[in-house]
């Protein structure tokens, strides 16, 4: 039996990698992937907790989260595409129209 804390530790590591990647990388696709990584870290925690407590709701949450993440990625990619078509770059440095 794998200890839930190990899985939680893995989740933390994955989340940290995702977080660092999200604000260190300039490329929007990489950032999107990093966000997915963070989501999955959370999912992992849900799954392990569900296994530990024998409660189904964790799995249900995970399933919903994955579905929503898929939709979110689709929207994110669409935004990136339209950004590329207008600005000809997907570097996040260029995306600062919210400034001030």
């Amino acid at each position: 039996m794998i200890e839930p804390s190990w899985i939680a530790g893995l989740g933390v590591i994955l989340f940290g990698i995702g977080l660092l990647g999200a604000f260190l990388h300039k490329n929007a696709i990489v950032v999107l992937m990093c966000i997915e990584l963070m989501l999955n870290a959370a999912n992992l925690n849900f799954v392990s907790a569900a296994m530990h407590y024998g409660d189904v709701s964790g799995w249900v949450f995970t399933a919903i989260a994955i579905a929503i993440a898929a939709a979110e990625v689709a929207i994110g990619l669409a935004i990136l595409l339209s950004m590329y078509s207008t600005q000809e770059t997907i570097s996040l440095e260029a995306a600062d129209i919210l400034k001030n």
Partner: protein
Amino acid sequence: MVNSTNEYNLLAPLLFPIALILGLVIAPGINSSDASILIVLSPLVAFPIILISGQIYNGNDKWKNNLKEGGIIAVSALLIPLLVSIWIIGDNISHTDGHSIITWLSDWIEFQVLEENYVLDQGRTLGIGVWIDSITLMLIFVASFLCFLICWFSMGYMNTDPINENRNHRFYAEFVLFAMGMFGMVLADNFLWLFIFWEIMGLCSYLLIGFYFWKESAAKAAKKAFLTTRVGDVFLMIGLFILYDIYDSLEFSVIFDDPSLQGTVDSTKLFWALLLMFVGAVGKSAQFPLHVWLPDAMEGPTPVSALIHAATMVNAGLYLVARMVPFVVTGDGYNGVEGLDDLGLIIAWIGGITAFMAASIAFVQNDIKKVLAYSTMSQLAYIFTGLGAAIWLYNNNHYYAGTIAFGASMFHLFNHAMAKGMLFMASGSVIHEVHHAHDHIHHENEDSDHHFDPQDMRNMGGLASKLPITATAMMIGSMSIIGIPLIGGFWSKEGIIAETWASFFYSEPIMLGPAILVLLTAGMTGFYMSRMWFMTFAGAPKSEVVNHVKENTPWIKEPLVILTLISAFSGILLSLFGVVDYLAGKSDHLSYKEIIYTLEHAFIPEDGKLMIIGWTTMFLSSIIGPIYASRVHGGPLNDDQKSNFLISWLVNLSGKFGKQDVSDLSKSSLANALQERLYIDDFYDWLISKTVIPFSHFSAWFDKNIIDGIIKQIESRSILSSLQIRKITTGKARDYILMTAVGMLSIFILAWGASR
């Protein structure tokens, strides 16, 4: 110019008020006092009627010719007060027991006052009613009679001047509104309503001085008049507040009958109340130092000067002071209110100074109306002196002398109002005809386009033959003002001067000043009034214009003739009936006295000192003054000119005393200072431009830059700081994620720390 003798048929509407009043007189159950409300109501109703129909029918032929642009309505509306006041006088003259009161609105406003013991005093009111006593009767007659006559005069004077065309309705409307104010003030039975009508008169005075509103000088004069009197009025208001505080009421009946008068009143408070009220009177009656507005007020049309600034409104101040006299009179054997001696002295001094100052300034005036204006100021000052002396005498238990001083002052008010109203109308007649003659010539030779002042006496001279009625009227009026024995003002002026001296003889050394001043002024009056008459009517014509002057304007002669008769004979007639005692409240009715007794009383008083004073006065005013004036300005008419028998003797006499050249004197610095009105106006102008104006600009600057500036600083500083804070929003997603992360982390740390 409409020149028809048939204009009197326009007066048909006058039958309506006559019928109305006759009906009221005959009708059972209505007595004169009930009708007294008509005196105020009639002009009040006429005011909007004239004003609004004037706006609507302006330019309409019928309005212009048949109604005289409202003049006929105004005359009709003013006839009602005249008839009612005659009715009231008829009812009351034989039996007034002191006074009577009729109530209209007893509780105009009701309120409560918190007393010292924290209890609310219920049912205080400020109401309005009518107060009738001998002074009221005299003044209401003066006011309604002169209003009527001068309104009549205006129909000739105003409506024939082309500049007034389509504007006269404004004049008549304001005229009747003024009449309403004057009647109301005289009738009011308390000081509050006296003040209210007083202010209404001030407004009308402002409007009428500024009748030629486009003239800068007229507009300025109007403003000056309003503001100067306003300064006085504000003090009067404070005086009334104090009075209310003392008596808990402003009604004459409460104040004059209050038993606390017998010595328990806080005399310091009373002194200040009366003094401040006197300041109001000083403003209204144009006394030093608030006199500066009256000469400028001559910018108004001449009927306005005649009515408001000579005969009625300026008497309001005197009336107010006359209403202050009962504070010190409670009958024989009473020792007076402590401190009110000073009040009498102050009033007498102000009167004396003004009388002397105005008379000396009148010496050098060349504008015929300005001479009369200063003369008005000087004569009013006489009355003030008399009232001051009366207050002093009453307060020092000289009851008999006090009644003479008081009654003579009131009687002088009557004589002066009649004579001065008439003099102004006569001067209006002169100005009007000279102006008209000038226009006449002007049409014939266009090249003589120089500036011509129809009021300047240096353009006149020799008018006695051209304007016989006017000249006669002016002669009688001047005699009444000068105090030529047996005519008009003589009967009252003697009394004032004598009693002012009497109070000096009763061991009051401070009274010597006013006493000497009024005595000197008597002589000066003789000089400047005669000077005016001689300059205008005697001698050779001083300009071409004079030869074309004709006396043919309608509506002008009747008032002059009537007032000439009154000025000439009312003095002696009323004196025969003991009017002085009646006005002073010593006797409650007029009663005939022997003619010998009256004359003896006037010329040979029992007190030897007073007799000397009396004869000195007569000598100065009737002989020295006129003779000196005739030496400077007198002279016979040109040979081809003839004047009527009433004035020819005077014209001829004026040439008999030789000629004196005063050109050196008139160039002296004293004459210059007098021309500049002793620099008092300049001083006020300087004072205002150095204090009030800069301070107001400073206040405006302060408000804009300091108070609003602080608010704006708060605004701009907060905008600045928000601009600084705004820089954090870089717009980059990374930064936002970082901030979110750091924020979350710190919240976790805080929560963790807090849970420990």
